[in-house]
Structures are given as C-alpha cells and as structure tokens.
C-alpha cells in the first residue's frame, strides 16, 4: 500500500516549520506577481505616451506635418468625425460587414473543414484545388465580388468572409488530422460512437489550431471589409478614410485608422478570452495574445 501513502501525503497539508515557509513563499510569490503585473501595465502606458509625444514633437520639426500629421490634430479630427461626420454611423457598417463576414467565413471553414477531414478520398481529390485557391491574393477578388453583389454591404461581407474562410478551413483540417490515432482507437474500444469521437476527441484535439485561425483572421475580416469599402461605397470607415485621402486630409485619415484599431483590438480581446476558456486544459497556458 506504499502507493496510497505517497499520494495521500501529496494531497495532505504540511505542518510546522514547513507550513510556515510554504505560506511565506506563497505570499512573496503573489506579491512579486502583483508587482510584475503593475510594471507591465505602467510600462505599456508609458510606452504609448512616449510614442505619441515623440510623434507630436517630431512632426512639424523633423518630419513634414503634411504627411504624418500630429496626434493632437488627429484627436481633433477624430472628435470632429465623431460629432460632425457621424463616425459611429459609418463604424456601424464596417463592424457589421467585418463581423458578418467573419462569422460566415469562419463557420463555413469549420463545417467544411470537418467534413473534408473526415472524408479522406474527397479531401485527397480536392486538396490541390483548396491550396490553389488559398494561394490567390484574396484582395484581388474584391472587385469581382463588387461586380457580383453590388456596392452595398453584401459585397463587403463576401470579401471579409473569403479572407477568413480559407485560413479557418486549412487550419481546421490540419487540427483534425492532428488527433492522435491511438487516442481515437482507445476511445473506440471504450465504446465511443462516431458522433462521440467527433465531439469528445476530434474537436477538442483540433481546438488549438482552430483558435489560432480564429485569432489570425480577426484583422483579416477587417481588411476585407475596408478594402471593399475603398473600392466602392458611400458608407463605412473605409469610405471615410478614402474620402479623407481624396481631400489630402492626413489627420482625418489617421483618425479613421485609429477608429479601426480600437475595433480590431476589441474583437481580438473577445476571441482571446474565448480561446483561453476553450483551451484551459492546455499545459502551455492557453492562447497567446497576438493582437
């Protein structure tokens, strides 16, 4: 029964001097972590301020203000956009386009990826075609989509979706194929049905790949929507930006870019949280923040 003793002691509470030391080190460790955390946060804020300050000072002195503008002017332009040009109205279109495209592209990639990865022969037949399509610079499809779907919101959703679709598709297939054969065999012997296997073995095994794809594609969806708006539209932040460029309004241009930055950061935060939750079992501590 030696085995029982060993595990029991590991589970039990230590006592005496050992317990004191344990508590002491734990408190120290917690404190150290808090300090680390605070340093990181402060450092990030300081770096951001330093960047903006440098920009502010260099612009108009070393750099031509016409081309790089100034943070203070950009802030003013942002405020003007917000109050006079209905930035939120435009933003709303861009977000709807990017988000719908993201959801449609990702779902299609996931579902099709699952089907393809499970149908070996079909996959082997169409694999070169998938790779070929993946190789097309997808932005080049934007004019085509506008031709097909008009200059409204649909064409932008389509561009955003195609940006997302192939990356999610290819990652899903790779993830599913990474499920260890032995794990599948053992689960089968334990009595798992095909549906059990997909739900409880194959899908969780693929999550690290899928989450990575979902993270990478957040900005891709935004790129799709914006490029669509650049080419032809009368609404959306892309439209605001290209109009500002047309008027040689650099502060307005930067203001539009900042608005997009904020949206992408928020979307990325949401997907990172989802990822860490889904991957809480992962020894590598879940998903890295790649924003």
């Amino acid at each position: 029964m030696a085995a029982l003793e060993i595990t029991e002691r590991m589970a039990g509470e230590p006592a005496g001097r050992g317990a004191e030391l344990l508590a002491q080190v734990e408190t120290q460790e917690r404190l150290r972590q808090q300090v680390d955390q605070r340093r990181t946060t402060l450092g990030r804020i300081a770096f951001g301020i330093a960047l903006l300050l440098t920009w502010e000072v260099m612009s108009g002195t070393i750099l031509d203000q016409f081309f790089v503008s100034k943070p203070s002017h950009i802030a003013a332009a942002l405020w003007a956009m917000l109050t006079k040009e209905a930035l939120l109205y435009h933003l709303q279109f861009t977000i709807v386009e990017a988000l719908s495209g993201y959801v449609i592209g990702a779902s299609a990639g996931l579902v099709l990826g699952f089907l393809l990865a499970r149908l070996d022969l079909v996959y082997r037949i169409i694999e070169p075609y998938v790779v070929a399509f993946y190789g097309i610079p997808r932005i080049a499809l934007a004019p085509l989509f506008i031709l097909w779907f008009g200059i409204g919101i649909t064409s932008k959703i389509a561009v955003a979706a195609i940006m997302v679709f192939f990356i999610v598709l290819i990652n899903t297939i790779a993830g599913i194929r990474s499920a260890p054969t032995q794990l599948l065999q053992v689960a089968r012997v334990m009595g798992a049905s095909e549906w059990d296997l997909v739900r409880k073995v194959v899908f969780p095994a693929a999550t690290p790949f899928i989450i990575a794809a979902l993270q990478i594609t957040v900005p891709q969806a935004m790129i799709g929507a914006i490029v669509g708006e650049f080419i032809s539209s009368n609404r959306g932040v892309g439209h605001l930006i290209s109009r500002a460029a047309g008027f040689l309004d650099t502060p307005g241009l930067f203001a539009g870019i900042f608005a997009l930055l904020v949206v992408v950061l928020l979307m990325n935060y949401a997907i990172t949280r989802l990822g860490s939750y889904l991957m809480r079992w992962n020894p590598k501590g879940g998903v890295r923040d790649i924003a």
Partner: protein
Amino acid sequence: MSTDAAVIEVRDVFKVFVARGDDHQRRAFLALHDVNLTIGRGRFMSLVGPSGCGKSTVLNMIAGLVQPTEGEVRYGGTAVAGVNTDVGYITQDDNLLPWRTLRENVEVALEFRGVPARQRREQAARYIAMVGLRGFEHHYPHELSGGMRKRTALVRTLIYEPSVVLMDEPFGPLDAQTRVILQDELLRLWTGTDRTIVFVTHDLVEAIALSDEIALFSRAPGTIKQRYQVPLPRPRDVFHIHADPQFPAFYNRLWNDLREEIAAVQLEAT
C-alpha cells in the same frame, strides 16, 4: 461457463503488413506466422518476445482494431469482426484526453456507454479512491505525475468492467519504483475478479511477478515458441519477487529461450 473456459482463441493467424521500406518502395512483410493461442477466463497471461515480433499486433487483433490476413481471433466463442468494446485497452501512453480533468477522464467510457451522470460520478469516485487519487479529481492530465496518469488510465479502463483487459507495456515509461508500486496495485485490483488480463512486456521479471502463464514469441515473423506456467505461488509479493525460491531457475530458463531469439535477430541484422 467455468473459469477455465477459453475467452480468447487465436487460431492459425497470419498477418501481412504493407509498409514503406528503406528504398521507399512499398513492401509487404510477414508480421505473424501461424500464431495459435488460447487464453482461459480469469487468467493473467503475459506475452514476451523480441521487439517487433508482433505481440502488440495480437493485442490489436483481440481489440478488433486489426484484422488477421488469414486465420481468426475468437472472443467468447465468436470471431472478432469489428472493434471489440468488450475489452479494455491500456497502452504504453496513458492516452488520457488532455482537455478533460482526471474525473472526467475516468468517466468518459461510462459516458460513451450512456450511463446517467449521477451513477457515473459515484462510480468514478469509488474507483478514484481505489488508487489513492482522491483530491486530484479536478486536475488536468498535464498537472499529474506519470504514475498518477497511469493510475488514472488504469481505473478509467477498469470502471466499465471489461471482462478482458489488454495491456501493452503499460508500465514501460515509468521509473523503476513507480513501476513496482503499480504492478502491486494492478495485482490487488485484479485478484478476486474473474477478469482476464493479456499483458505485453519486455521485462521478464515483470512477466514472472504478475502472470499465471507466459507465452514466448519468436523473432519476426512472430509465432509462439513456448508456453510456460509460472510456478510461483499466489499471493505474490512483487517487491521481493527475487527472493522467491522458484524465481532464479524459472527466470534463467525464460531468459535462455528468449536470448536465442534476440541473438538470431542480431545475427540477421549484421
């Protein structure tokens, strides 16, 4: 059925595998040559032999994961055709699902078998306690030691009470101490049940300490060269198995027979 009735019969089995050879050409090779093996209900049977002799293939056939090229494997009187969910399978890797906690891993087979949640939980708690893992239910596999993971793998298989447990070098990757401790636990969990165990190992001491019977495989293409009844009485003390008076002579006999096969492999390789 009496306890001596055969639960597993391997009859005239041949197995040909196709694999890519050194020259990247597809080559067929013979893995098993006319294997015959009968295993009685409730017996602890070990399979030993040189590496690559097809021992694991025999286990895979009993589990229904691999089909013989010729001959048949009968389980409980009928030929094994598909995956045999009547058996439990424990391999060298623990094969725990990394995304499930210890308890969820122990429960998974019952989930597959449609056992209600309440009952699953109760049974899992009982089995987890049996191997001294209480307090670790909510840990993920990567938070457990190798020995703990192996115990988890053991009980998550025993929990659905398979009448035959196939074990493919289950304690191979463990350190020497944990290995003996787990051998002892395995004997404890098995004793008094009518469960049949088929155990593949390279470790002759382990085979002698645990089994009723040992089948020695020849080098590839594998066939059964010799069968032995282990003369050591039960209950056995795995911690002092060397001290058993029967041990040295039996060990030497086994080792001499195995050595011939290993030496032949080495000769063929040079």
